[in-house]
C-alpha cells in the first residue's frame, strides 16, 4: 500500500466520523441558518408590502404595480380614519395627496411619480454598511473556521495518542500518511462547509433580490477568498496537528496550542481594527497569517491591483510549504512520546523515533 492510499483511508475515516458527529452537523445547520437570516433579515425589517387606502380608482393600478396592497375607500374621512388607526400605512386621496402619520411613505410616493432615469458614474461604490459588513463576515468566517477545525485536528491527534491506537496505526502505515490524511480530510470539510455557506449566501441574495451591485462586487472577492482560505487553512492545519501530537492528554491541548491560537486571533483583530487604514491593510494583505482575510477585503474595496492577490498567494504558498515541513517534523517527533507533554525542542531534535 502506498502512502497515498493509506492517507486516503485515513482521510475517509476522519470524514465519515465528522459527518456523523452531531455537534459538527448541528454547527453547520446553525451557520446555514445564520447565513439565511443575514440575507432575509433586511427584507423582514423592511416589513411586508405596505397597505394603502385609496379614494377612487384612478391610482389603484399604479399602486398595485408597485407591489402595494390596495384598499379602496369611499372618501377622505374614511381614508384618514384607516391611517390614524394604523390599519394602513398610508392613503391616497384626490389631488393626489398622500396621507401618512409621520413618515413620508417612499414606496407610495415613487409609485405615483415618474422618476428620471439615473446613470451611475461610479457603479462600484457601495454603501457604508456593506463596507463594514463584508470584511467583518470574511474575518469571522476565516477565524471561526480555522480555530474550530484547528482545535478539532489537534484533539483528534491527541485522542489517537491518548488511546494508544496510534501504535497500531504507526505499525501499519507511515506516520506521513496519518498526517496527510488527517489534514486533507479537515481541509476538505472546512472548505466544503465554507463553500456551502458562500453558495447559500449568494443564491439567497439572488433569490431575495437584495444586494444588487453588492453581489457583483462580492463574486471576485469570494473567488479569491476561497483559494486564500484553503491555503491559509492548510498552513495552519499541519501546525494544529503538531500541537496535538505534543500533548499527551486532551487536557494538554489547550496549553500546547496557545501560541497557535494567538497566531489565529491576532490577524483577525488586526484586520478588524485597521481596515480603514489602507497602508496597514496593504502590509497585512501580504503577511501570510492575515493575508487570507486582508487580501480579499482589499479586493472587495477595490484597493488591490490585479497582480497583488497572485503575489500574496505565492507568499502564502511558500509559507505553507514551510509550516508543512515544521509541522510534520514536530508531529513525527512527538507522536509516540506518550509519557507526558513533549516540548517543542525535544520533538524538533528527534524527528523520527520511528524505525
Amino acid at each position, binding site marked *: *500500500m502506498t502512502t497515498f492510499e*493509506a492517507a486516503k*483511508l*485515513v482521510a475517509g*475515516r476522519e470524514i465519515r*466520523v465528522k459527518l456523523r458527529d452531531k455537534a459538527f452537523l448541528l454547527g453547520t445547520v446553525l451557520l446555514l441558518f445564520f447565513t439565511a437570516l443575514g440575507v432575509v433579515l433586511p427584507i423582514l425589517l423592511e416589513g411586508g408590502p405596505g397597505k394603502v387606502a385609496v379614494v377612487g380608482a384612478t391610482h389603484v393600478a399604479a399602486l398595485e404595480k408597485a407591489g402595494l396592497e390596495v384598499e379602496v375607500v369611499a372618501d377622505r374621512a374614511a381614508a384618514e380614519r384607516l391611517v390614524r388607526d394604523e390599519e394602513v400605512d398610508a392613503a391616497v386621496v384626490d389631488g393626489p395627496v398622500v396621507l401618512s402619520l409621520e413618515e413620508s411613505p417612499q414606496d407610495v410616493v415613487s409609485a405615483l411619480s415618474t422618476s428620471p432615469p439615473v446613470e451611475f458614474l461610479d457603479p462600484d461604490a457601495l454603501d457604508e454598511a456593506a463596507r463594514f459588513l463584508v470584511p467583518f463576515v470574511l474575518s469571522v468566517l476565516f477565524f471561526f473556521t480555522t480555530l474550530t477545525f484547528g482545535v478539532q485536528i489537534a484533539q483528534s491527534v491527541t*485522542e*489517537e495518542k*491518548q*488511546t*494508544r*491506537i*496510534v*501504535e*497500531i*496505526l*504507526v*505499525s*501499519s*502505515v*507511515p506516520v506521513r500518511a496519518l498526517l496527510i490524511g488527517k489534514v486533507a480530510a479537515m481541509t476538505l470539510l472546512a472548505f466544503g462547509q465554507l463553500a456551502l455557506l458562500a453558495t447559500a449566501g449568494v443564491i439567497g441574495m439572488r433569490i431575495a433580490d437584495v444586494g444588487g451591485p453588492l453581489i457583483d462586487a462580492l463574486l471576485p472577492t469570494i473567488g479569491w477568498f476561497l483559494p486564500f482560505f484553503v491555503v491559509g487553512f492548510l498552513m495552519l492545519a499541519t501546525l494544529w496537528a503538531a500541537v496535538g501530537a505534543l500533548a499527551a492528554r486532551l487536557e494538554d491541548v489547550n496549553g500546547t496550542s496557545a501560541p497557535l491560537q494567538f497566531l489565529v486571533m491576532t490577524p483577525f483583530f488586526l484586520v478588524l481594527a485597521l481596515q480603514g487604514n489602507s497602508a496597514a491593510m496593504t502590509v497585512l494583505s501580504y503577511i501570510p497569517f492575515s493575508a487570507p482575510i486582508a487580501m480579499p477585503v482589499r479586493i472587495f474595496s477595490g484597493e488591490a491591483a490585479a497582480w497583488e492577490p497572485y503575489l500574496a498567494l505565492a507568499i502564502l504558498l511558500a509559507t505553507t510549504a514551510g509550516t508543512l515541513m515544521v509541522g510534520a517534523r514536530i508531529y513525527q517527533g512527538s507522536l*509516540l512520546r*506518550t509519557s507526558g507533554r513533549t516540548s517543542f525542542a525535544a520533538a524538533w531534535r528527534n524527528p*523520527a*523515533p*520511528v*524505525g
Partner: protein
Amino acid sequence: MTTVLNVEAVNRTFGERQVLKDVSFTVDSGRLTGFVGANGAGKTTTMRIILGVLAADSGAVTWRGRPVTRQDRQAFGYMPEERGLYPKMTVTEQVVYLGRLHGLSAADARRRTTALLERLELAERGGDPVEKLSLGNQQRAQIAAALVHDPELLVLDEPFSGLDPLAVENVLTVLRERARSGAAVLFSSHQLELVERLCDDLAIIADGTIRAAGSRTWLREQYTLPRYTIEVDSDAGWLRDEPGVTLLELDGRRAVFDLDAEADDQAVLRSALSRGPVRTFAPVRPSLAEIFREVIQ
C-alpha cells in the same frame, strides 16, 4: 516451522538507562512463542522495536532473513500493552478500518471482520461503540483488530490480562488456530502457568537481557535438576541408604530425591526393581515458574 523473525543483538537506551542489552531471540512460524519477564524487564520495548513503533539504537530485526520493511509490517498484527481503539467508533467499523490499513480490500475487510467477531463471540456487540463495551469485550475487540488481516506475525503484549477464564480459553483457541495455519505468534505474559500451557517456544528476559530462549521442551531439559520421583509397592525408606541419593520427600510408597552428579539413575532403578514392582520412576521436570526463578537470578 522455520525461523521467520530474528531479533539480533538489539540495544536501546532511554536517556541514561539502558533498557535492552544485546537482545537476541527468534520466532518460528507455526509456533507460539512466549515472551516472559518481570515488569520493566524490556518486553514491551522489544515488541515496539519489532513493530517499528520504536527504533533500536543498534542491532537488527530481520523478517525471513532481511531487515523488516514497511511492506513486511503490513502483514504483522500488533496488540499493544496499553489498549487503544477509537472510543466512539463501533467495533465492526474499526476492525474493518484497521484491516484496510493493513492492505485488505473493503469487501475482504468486512467479510473477515464478521467471521472474526463471530469466532471471538463478539458478533452481537459489533454495532456498539467501543466505549460502551465491558473491559473484557474491549479486549476481544482489540484482539480482533490485531487478527483481522490474517497476519503472518502476531505480536501480542499481555493478551490475556483482563480476560475472564472463559475468554482466555476462547482467545487461546483462536491463537492456536492461527499458529496451526502457519502464523508466527509472539506474546508476552506474566501468567507463567498460562505461558507454560500455551507456548511452544520461550524467551525469558530480565533487566534487558535474554536469560534463556528456546523450545519449551529443550529449556525444561536444560534446567532439569537431577531430581526424580519414584513410586513402589512397599515402603520406599530404603532410598535413604542408597549411594548418591539425597531424599527430599518420603511418603510411604512414594518419594522424591536428588541424585549426585556421578550417581547412575539406572542403578537406583535396578535397586528398586530388586525390591519389588516399580510403578513410577521419572525425572522431575521443573515448572516454568521454577525455571524462570532460576534464570532471572
